[in-house]
């Protein structure tokens, strides 16, 4: 997957610059509700249930203040990528026990023609391993800054 293809998965409609939730379940709810309002998701409870089940398998909070809630659901017609920033941090049960400030949510249908779900997830995980990039992402205020940042990486 090229960087342009990765950037194209995200959109201003699915960017939350100031997530208000303080706990894991409320953060998932706020992100899913945002996607419902954007018209990307209809059956909110199905998606929320899937994401919570995925977290019960092992936290998607990989440490250093970043989490990647993800999974597959019949309730999504095509791959969705949502980006959210929390200024205060969310108690997410991350593997390092630290609060999470940056969320990349990926939800894919059970079967994808172009199979972009895992490559996109892998590329973003790789991207945030760089301390400087991660700090810049955590300071995002506008969606355009995200695009510029990724285009420059």
């Amino acid at each position: 997957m090229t960087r342009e293809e990765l950037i194209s998965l995200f959109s201003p409609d699915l960017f939350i610059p100031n997530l208000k939730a303080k706990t894991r379940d409320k953060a998932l709810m706020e992100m899913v509700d945002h996607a419902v309002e954007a018209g990307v998701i209809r059956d909110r409870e199905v998606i929320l249930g899937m994401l919570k089940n995925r977290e019960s398998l092992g936290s998607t909070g990989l440490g250093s203040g970043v989490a990647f809630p993800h999974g597959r659901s019949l309730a999504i017609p095509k791959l969705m990528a949502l980006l959210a920033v929390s200024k205060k941090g969310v108690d997410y049960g991350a593997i390092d026990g630290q609060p999470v400030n940056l969320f990349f949510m990926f939800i894919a249908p059970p079967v994808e023609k172009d199979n972009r779900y895992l490559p996109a997830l892998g590329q973003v995980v790789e991207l945030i391993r760089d301390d400087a990039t991660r700090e810049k992402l955590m300071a995002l205020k506008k969606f355009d800054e995200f695009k510029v940042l990724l285009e420059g990486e």
Partner: protein
Amino acid sequence: MPTMSEHLLQLVALQDLDDMIRETKDQVHSNKLAEMGFEMEGMEDLQAARDELAGGIDKVLLSRYERTVKRLGRAVVPVTGNICLGCFAVIPTAYTSSENQDKILHCENCGRILYWPRGS
């Protein structure tokens, strides 16, 4: 008592959970996620969630779901552009009429339960 559309959403959630369990057991998939740093040690919790969800589903529907899974792999499939994505047969437009809104509908061709992710 749940409505038919709530019954359908229970089956969709069950299908999601079964897909997650199947994917987690798949070594290639699990290895890819492990390489990214994701730990997946809660299979027992996932199985417990599956049992709880299945326990709340109407027995006749659950039995039909299980039989279809055994026969075809997936019991619930999305419909996109009037096409059943289980077998690619065309779904009659009459299926989406208001009188069908409180029914669980099956593909006439493959027998899978139909789900419209974006509504009808």
